[in-house]
Structure formats: structure tokens, C-alpha cells
């Protein structure tokens, strides 16, 4: 018996006999030999509690803590201490789908509060209890549009984060969707052929701030899109809505995006949380759970999951989406975050990122290493161009204790500044960049 596997030789033989296979090798013979792991697993023997702690501390000591100036979809953000203290309570952290209204008023209420705050920030009418992350929320937005319009063409801006569009296309793979890109021009989406391209389309998908961090010019595009009978889907960075126009004001039918910036730690890429919000006419197409407020038979306020006929456990194969889960703990975290920030704090935080980004941009240009790629209004990320070698530059910065910009190819470097970066840190970083040979 292998020291970490529960199966005895006898167990394995019994299982192989049951399916009529002679050996493990025979079971895996469909996998080409060269793809099968050939080495020794080399897992050491058991260690005591103390030894494990010591070993893991030694491994952890190899980690380098870097000061982060990179974003590209995941941001080094401030997490108020209150969040961990509350979200780690057992009734939240170990609960599994606690949605029966007679015993789960607390959970249902925080979801309702979360939904209310997302609707207020985005200017939309309705949102669900949350999605896995920004890209999957965007994919679900596309599915809503397809179901609502009965059309199969999706027009999308080429300045959407490439990982988002990859996920959207994966979701669209078995639905024979037709994806038509809108070109870019001077760091923004080129909408000059929008009317023509959006003919017979289910939706036009735009991200603002776009992948370069620039604020797209979206005034009036919803009219053009609606005139073609198509829907306007806006993917956005939630904190930017503290300072810039909301999807609701811009006439978006669906808004979606990631909420990682709302105090969710980077934690190696997840768990994050996405949001999906819509205008009332699309309410019935909304996937997942929606929490509503009502009164019980004694007239007391109560929270319940509502409009469940939309959902896949009722509609089965006919459901618009087969998602029946959400990121409840993350939604709680976001609700606590927004409650602790308040409206003023939410705006201050966005302001810090924006000001920091403009300051860093100007200082980097002064070093002579970088030039501006475009003159658009941006939020907390921006692109600069340079002829330096991206690999050498990246390695140099890591050695100096920085996670530098994301290289986008074509001499384009994407920098990000979050509320966590102080003026001193920015000045120090610029000095280090200026010394790059």
C-alpha cells in the first residue's frame, strides 16, 4: 500500500476485476506512454508536526514579497481587517447552500444587501447573487443576449481582456456563435462601423476601462446598438464606477465584470467573484440565484430566493444557463467591504488609484525609457511604449523587489497603480526603473 493512497493492492485488483481490466498499465494504455509520468514520485516519508512546520517555513522563506505595479485583471488591493474577522465565522465559512428561508435569513439578507449595492454602483435594475469571476459572468451575459434576441452573432471590442474573450468563446463553442471583432484605434475601440457590424447581432460587448486601462467613449453607442435590435453589454472594473459613467447611465442592457478589486486578496488567482447585472426586461434571462425581499404571514420582513422558475433545477435542459452556484462567501466579503468603505471611502479609493496612475505615468515618461502610447483618459492602468527588452526588464525589477508592468507585445507595457501604492513607493520604483541599463 502506498503511504499516501488509501487503496490496498487488494482494492485495486477488485476494482480492475469489476471493470474487466487486467492491470493498471492496461487501464491507462489509452494515454500515450510519453504523456504518462515516468519518474519516481519521490514523496518523502511522514514527518512530525514540528518537522512539517519547519520544512514549510523553509520553503516559504523562498518566497519574495514584491511591490506590485502590475494589474491586467487582478489587482493588489487593500483588504480591511474586518473582512477576515467576519467571513471566517463558522456559520459563513462552512455553510453549504443555506437558502431555506426558515433557517437562513442571515445569509439571504447579506446576499440581498450585496445585490442592492451592486445595483446602486452599476446603475442597473437587477443583479444575481454573484458569479464565479468576471470572465464567466461575461460569458453568461452573452448567453442571456443570445436567448433574448434569438440571434447568434456577437460583436466584441478587440480591447477586451484576452482571457475574458477566451472564456466567452469557450462558452460559445458548442452554440455555433459567430464572433465579430471591432478594431482598435488610438487606444480605444473603433466604433465607426458599429451600425453596420452590429446588424443581426445578439449583442455588442465592450470593456471599459479597456485592456489598456483607457475609458471608452460610450455615449450614444447604446442607441446605435438598440437601433439594430441588439443588446449592449458592458464589462467594467467596478471601482472605476466611483469616478466614471455607469453602465446604467450609458444605456447598457447588461453589465458584468470582476469584483476582485473590492478587497478580495490576489491569493494566486482565486477565488475571485464576478457580477452580472441587467435592466428589468432581461430579468427572466438572468442565470443563477436572485434574492428578494418580502413579508411572511405575520407581516414581518423576510428574505427569499425568488423567480426560481428561471433556474436550471426547474427548467432542466430548457434553462438559459446551467449555473446554479454563486460565490456566496465572496459576496459576503464584498458586502462587508462596501459597508466598511461607505460611499465616500469608495470614491476616495478610486481617486487614489487614478491619481497614482497619472503620477507614475508622468514620472516614467521623464526617465526617457518610456513614451506615451496614446493620449486617452485612463483609470488605474495605462500603457507606455519602450524599446527595452521585456524579459531583461522584468528580471531586473524582480531582483529589485518589484513586480513590474505586464508586457503586451509590440513594445507595449501595461502598468497598474492601486490604492495601496504610496507616493514614496512610486518614487522609489521610478528611480529603480531609471537605473535600468
Amino acid at each position: 500500500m502506498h503511504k499516501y493512497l488509501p487503496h490496498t493492492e487488494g482494492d485495486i485488483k477488485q476494482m480492475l476485476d469489476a471493470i474487466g481490466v487486467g492491470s493498471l498499465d492496461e487501464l491507462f494504455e489509452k494515454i500515450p506512454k510519453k504523456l504518462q509520468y515516468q519518474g519516481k514520485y519521490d514523496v518523502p516519508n511522514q514527518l512530525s508536526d514540528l518537522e512539517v512546520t519547519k520544512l514549510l517555513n523553509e520553503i516559504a522563506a523562498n518566497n519574495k514579497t514584491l511591490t506590485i505595479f502590475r494589474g491586467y485583471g487582478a489587482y493588489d488591493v487593500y483588504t480591511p481587517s474586518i473582512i477576515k474577522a467576519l467571513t471566517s465565522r463558522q456559520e459563513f465559512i462552512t455553510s453549504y447552500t443555506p437558502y431555506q428561508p426558515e433557517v437562513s435569513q442571515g445569509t439571504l439578507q447579506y446576499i440581498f444587501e450585496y445585490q442592492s449595492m451592486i445595483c446602486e454602483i452599476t446603475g442597473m435594475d437587477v443583479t444575481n447573487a454573484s458569479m464565479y469571476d468576471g470572465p464567466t459572468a461575461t460569458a453568461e451575459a452573452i448567453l442571456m443576449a443570445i436567448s433574448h434576441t434569438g440571434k447568434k452573432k456577437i460583436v466584441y471590442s478587440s480591447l477586451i481582456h484576452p482571457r475574458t474573450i477566451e472564456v466567452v468563446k469557450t462558452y460559445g463553442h458548442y452554440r455555433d456563435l459567430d464572433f465579430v471583432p471591432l478594431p482598435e484605434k488610438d487606444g480605444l475601440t473603433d466604433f465607426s462601423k458599429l451600425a453596420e457590424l452590429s446588424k443581426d447581432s445578439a449583442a455588442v460587448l465592450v470593456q471599459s476601462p479597456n485592456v489598456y486601462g483607457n475609458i471608452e467613449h460610450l455615449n450614444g453607442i447604446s442607441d446605435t446598438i438598440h437601433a439594430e435590435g441588439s443588446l449592449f453589454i458592458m464589462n467594467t472594473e467596478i471601482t472605476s464606477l466611483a469616478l466614471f459613467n455607469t453602465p446604467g447611465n450609458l444605456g447598457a442592457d447588461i453589465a458584468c465584470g470582476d469584483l476582485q478589486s473590492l478587497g478580495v486578496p490576489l491569493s494566486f488567482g482565486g477565488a475571485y467573484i464576478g457580477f452580472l447585472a441587467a435592466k428589468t426586461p432581461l430579468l427572466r434571462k438572468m442565470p443563477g440565484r436572485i434574492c428578494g425581499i418580502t413579508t411572511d404571514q405575520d407581516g414581518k420582513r423576510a428574505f427569499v430566493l425568488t423567480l426560481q422558475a428561471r433556474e436550471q433545477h426547474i427548467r432542466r435542459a430548457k434553462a438559459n444557463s446551467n449555473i446554479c452556484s454563486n460565490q456566496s462567501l465572496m459576496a459576503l466579503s464584498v458586502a462587508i467591504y462596501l459597508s466598511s468603505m461607505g460611499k465616500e471611502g469608495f470614491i476616495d479609493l478610486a481617486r487614489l488609484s487614478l491619481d497614482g496612475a497619472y503620477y507614475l505615468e508622468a514620472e516614467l515618461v521623464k526617465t526617457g525609457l518610456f513614451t506615451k502610447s496614446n493620449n486617452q483618459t485612463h483609470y488605474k492602468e495605462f500603457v507606455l511604449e519602450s524599446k527595452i527588452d521585456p524579459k531583461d526588464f522584468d528580471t531586473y525589477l524582480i531582483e529589485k523587489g518589484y513586480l513590474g508592468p505586464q508586457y503586451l507585445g509590440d513594445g507595449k507595457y501595461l502598468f497598474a497603480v492601486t490604492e495601496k501604492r504610496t507616493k514614496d513607493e512610486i518614487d522609489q520604483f521610478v528611480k529603480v526603473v531609471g537605473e535600468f541599463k
Partner: protein
Amino acid sequence: MNKHDVKYLSSHEWLYVEGNKAKVGISSYAAMHLGDIVFFDLPKVGQTFKKEAVFGAVESVKSASDLYLPASGTVVAVNEALVTKPELVNEDPFNNWIVEIELSDLSELNSLLDVTQYEATL
């Protein structure tokens, strides 16, 4: 109008023929079994459907069911009252039609059930 004036599809939709047009609704049996109806997903005027194609859906508090068209045709009107008051169908399923269609093949009507045949299927 009542249950004797219409023709049926075994999936519980009724058809009330007026010349080359017809109104479509659901039977009282269907309305009763759905429970409280909360939403109709209605087609758009001008859409064309084949006989027995799904032309919409009805949602109640406990389920969602597709609606099948008893005869081929083009939608000429939808009952807008059901957008805000879908419960009208629970109250009186035979006088609250869902869509009106222009029939494209009158011979299809011969294959529909009369009230006796329909009730025998329940």
C-alpha cells in the same frame, strides 16, 4: 368562449378558429396544474412557427413549461395584458388568449382534438 368552442393539442393548448385566424391559449386543466402563473415568455408579432413548435413559455411559482402551437402560422398579436397580469390565465383560461395567429394550413385543424377526445387524454 368555453371548453366546447375550441380545439386542442394533447399538450394542453387550445385553438379558437375565426376564419383564417385563430387565438391560442391553455386549458383549465393546464392552468390548474401549473399553479399560480407568474410570467409568460411571449413571441414577437411577425414570428412564424410550424405546428407543434415551441412559441413561448409559461412560468408558475413551481415550474416552467414550454408552449406549443396547435397549428402552423404567423403571430399577428400577443395578449399584452399578460405581461403585467399573467394570473388572468389562472382566473379564466378560455377567455384570456395568449397569442393570435394567422393560420397557414387549414387542413392541419383536422388533426386537433375536440373536447371529448382531449378530456379522454387527461
